């Protein structure tokens, strides 16, 4: 019904991001993943607070329900069976929706970032991450020998 009218973009419907597009992505991508090493040889395992953040689960609650109901309030009241005008309206509301989605994501990032900072009592700016953009290379000349 509203295919390709809601965001008004002619480009791809898919957003691409490589490594480390946002702190929220980084947290979600890497935390609580990977090989676990036996505690017997580990002298320390840091970042426990971070692992707890990742354990947050999306649980529906009354708060969630009321928030959804508020979203219904914000929805344009358009007769559901009319065509023509609704397309226009939906185009406009789509733009608003996109703005909201972006704002919502920003909040998530802020919340997680805050939690991480609180956990370790330190503040890292996002600009810091450009500091380390490591490159790797394979020593092909040795590859055959090993």
């Amino acid at each position: 019904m509203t295919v390709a009218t809601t965001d008004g973009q002619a480009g791809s419907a898919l957003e691409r991001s490589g490594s480390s597009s946002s702190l929220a992505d980084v947290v979600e991508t890497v935390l609580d993943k990977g090989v676990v090493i036996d505690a017997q040889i580990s002298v320390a395992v840091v970042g426990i607070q971070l692992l707890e953040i990742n354990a947050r689960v999306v649980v529906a609650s009354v708060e969630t329900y009321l928030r959804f109901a508020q979203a219904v309030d914000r929805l344009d009241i358009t007769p559901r069976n009319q065509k023509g005008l609704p397309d226009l309206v939906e185009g406009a509301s789509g733009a608003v929706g996109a703005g909201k989605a972006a704002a919502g994501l920003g909040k998530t990032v802020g919340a997680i970032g805050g939690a991480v900072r609180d956990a370790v009592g330190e503040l890292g700016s996002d600009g810091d991450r450009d500091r380390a953009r490591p490159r790797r290379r394979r020593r092909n000349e040795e590859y055959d020998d090993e």
Partner: protein
Amino acid sequence: MSEQDGLFLYGIVPSDVEPTPGTPGVGDPPGEVTVVRQGPVAALVSEVTPDAAVGRPADLTTYQMLLDGTAAVAPVLPVRFGTVVAGPGAVRELLDAQGDRFAAELDELEGRVQYVVHGRYDEPELIRRVLDDNPAAATLADQVRGQPEGVTREQRIRLGEYISRAVELRRDAESRELLDALAPLAVSGAHRPPSHELDAANVAFLVDADREDEFVDAVEEFAEQRRGLVRMRLLGPLAPYDFTSADRVAR
């Protein structure tokens, strides 16, 4: 390194991998990323002081960029973030004990990278569709619209519950469709838990490098079919965070 210093462990790689000299690791000040080799495998490490507050956002990003950068040129097994071991001796001990297993897993990962496909519903569009599909919810919506929350609390909770359940059902269906659509182009796929109440899908895929273009095209098509309803994002190429057997604790 002093005796109290530890080695932060990033990942396990074949022993023919070597970091670019001067690559900074985690911590402040950061240690240089180096490699500890033992037989056919090696570990990417950097020195950290025992009281180092490793776990800043910048540290997470450093960790991920190092692993993703490595995955682009060589297979790598990520080691769980925050693992610090006693020193090069302990690392060699670990590599010696687990070398065969690590080598076998690295063989499996050769020429493969991870992608994450993440979709989030556009809230107004989603709610519009839920109300269209569900007369009971639409009736409730009519009752609460424009009314103060205090007066319509009961209806609001019921309405919100309808929407919430509808999202869960749609998410399950969406995730299955995504996995079905892309499985033929991937080595394997793994569901990730939703990270937001409006999540439509969150699935990790292990992809052969020579099928990356095909895979990305298929994701584009999947996204195109949901344009306006789902904001689809493709993260990657990444290190195989979701495809290491992390459940098997290294002993």
